[in-house]
């Protein structure tokens, strides 16, 4: 299980290669990359700043990953989340799950993203032509997390 919070970009190919190296029982890798879009709610976005709660972020992500590992048969997981200043098309987050079979890998990967979106202490601020604004939490993200049922 690897969790990283960093300002630097990441190399998806290299990270996925590392995740699967050394375990020939892995048959499936599901992954997700989140990117900065150049538009949000109809407004052009020129910059984005990602703030987080340094003392809590890793812990929150590790709990989410541990919860996924308890629900599905998975061999390994990787979560990388960037913080600081980003621009359109920049990579924000990578979640990857290695498993024997694809069903577990897909479910665990989507679960981690849904929980990350509602439980990991990150906040986005967008710079638009109309000024800076904090991104509002989406109702749809709360619903996405709820459908996994709860603890």
């Amino acid at each position, binding site marked *: 299980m690897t969790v990283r919070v960093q300002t630097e970009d990441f190399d998806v190919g290299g990270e996925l290669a590392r995740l699967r190296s050394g375990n020939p029982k892995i048959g499936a890798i599901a992954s997700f990359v*989140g990117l900065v879009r150049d538009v949000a709610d109809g407004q052009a976005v020129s910059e984005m700043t*990602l*703030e*987080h*709660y340094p*003392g*809590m972020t890793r*812990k*929150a992500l590790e709990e989410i990953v541990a919860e996924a590992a308890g629900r599905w048969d998975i061999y390994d997981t990787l979560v990388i*989340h960037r913080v600081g200043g980003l621009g359109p098309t920049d990579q*924000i*987050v990578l979640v990857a799950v290695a498993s024997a079979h694809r069903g577990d890998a897909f479910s665990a990967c989507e679960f981690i*993203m849904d929980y*990350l*979106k*509602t*439980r*990991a*202490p*990150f*906040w*986005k*601020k967008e710079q638009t032509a109309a000024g800076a604004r*904090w*991104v*509002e*939490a*989406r109702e749809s993200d709360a619903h996405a997390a709820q459908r996994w049922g709860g603890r």
Partner: protein
Amino acid sequence: MVKVLYFARLREAFGRSEEQVQLPQPVTDVASLTQWLRGRGGVWESELAPGKTVRVAVNQAMADGGSALHDGDEVAFFPPVTGG
């Protein structure tokens, strides 16, 4: 004393990212601390108004109004998260 942290919109609204707070006598949990901060008036009253969705973590774990507070705790107030 508890250490109180503010993030994102709340950090900007309150003009501070953290402060040390000497808990007054009736403040024993998150709900009463929130109520006490609200008593500062102005942006404190509006940003922490009961209708506002504010999340609270105690010692880096999500908490709710009933979560007890003790000397030395770290309490964080922030809006719903929007990472990912």
